């Protein structure tokens, strides 16, 4: 009778603990498989010396990537200031016009702007960090008044991006492609 109570089919405490942990661990593992690593991309761009052109004038990154962009004003002679401003398609002229009478300074709350660096004097550098938007071609330009007509380029965003959301370090973020860190001079 006593021996029947201690039946060998009854699971041990260790087995029960392992069973309890197995389910959540399996769930976490499955979730990880569905979340690809956040792509980290470093981009560099510069002014073509003192001329109103970017070098290169085309950049590429995958959709949803965590992008760190460095801009270098390579001018030597002219006191013209330059910056790098990334906007949604079809918004370049409107944003350029909007800041024309404000020395080209980009306000922090313009929803048409994805990312931007502050203005740079000749020889100086600035950096900005942002999450790349979904696939497509996004124009960028220098917002110093009068420069945007010539000094512009295109960021080609490739590959599928999870619609509406992006991830950084495993944390799911609602899509807001604006600069995640305000651009700063180096």
């Amino acid at each position: 009778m006593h021996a029947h109570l201690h039946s060998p089919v009854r699971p041990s405490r260790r087995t029960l603990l392992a069973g309890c942990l197995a389910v959540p661990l399996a769930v976490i593992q499955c979730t990880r498989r569905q979340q690809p690593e956040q792509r980290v991309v470093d981009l560099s761009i510069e002014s073509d010396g003192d001329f109103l052109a970017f070098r290169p004038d085309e950049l590429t990154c995958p959709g949803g990537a965590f992008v760190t962009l460095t801009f270098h004003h390579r001018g030597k002679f002219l006191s013209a200031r330059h910056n790098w401003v990334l906007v949604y398609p079809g918004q370049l002229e409107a944003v350029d016009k909007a800041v024309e009478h404000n020395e080209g300074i980009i306000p922090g709350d313009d929803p048409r702007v994805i990312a931007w660096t502050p203005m740079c004097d000749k020889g100086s550098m600035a950096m900005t960090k942002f999450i790349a938007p979904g696939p497509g071609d996004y124009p960028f330009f220098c917002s110093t008044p009068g420069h945007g007509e010539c000094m512009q380029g295109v960021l080609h965003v490739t590959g599928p991006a999870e619609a509406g959301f992006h991830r950084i370090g495993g944390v799911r973020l609602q899509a807001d492609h604006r600069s995640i860190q305000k651009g700063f001079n180096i």
Partner: protein
Amino acid sequence: MKRTRATLAVLASFGFLLALAVQPSAQQLKAPDDIKTTLRLLVQVSNDFKRQITNKNFARVPHEFMEYTEAADALRSAMKGESADLRAKTETRLKTAVAAYQKVSDMSAKETDVDKLMAEHAKAVTAMNAVFDLFPAALRPDPNLPPPGRGGRRG
């Protein structure tokens, strides 16, 4: 009549040859690349003047004039190693050009008539072209080239 024409033709040919002889070739210059770059800068800033006037952004015109003087100084620096004769000629014409652009800049403080400002700008361009005439064709900015940059190429 025929004699007069022949004399004129001879004189014109002589003048042309003299002009060619006076104008240095690109090979004769010490820093042709630097000179070419600074001449292009003068054109770029001149075009910036035009853009600001056309867009009625008159407050920016004095800033463009400041850049024009910087581009002129860059040309002076690029010419440091050249002959005294060429430097003197360049300086004379450059001063005239800078004065012409200053006139546009000064006018823009009061004048809001785009046509009047553009007419004054056209005079300044003529003065600038007189500077370019001192240099070999290979160094002169091509007036038919679009502005630099992707936007400029798209026209």
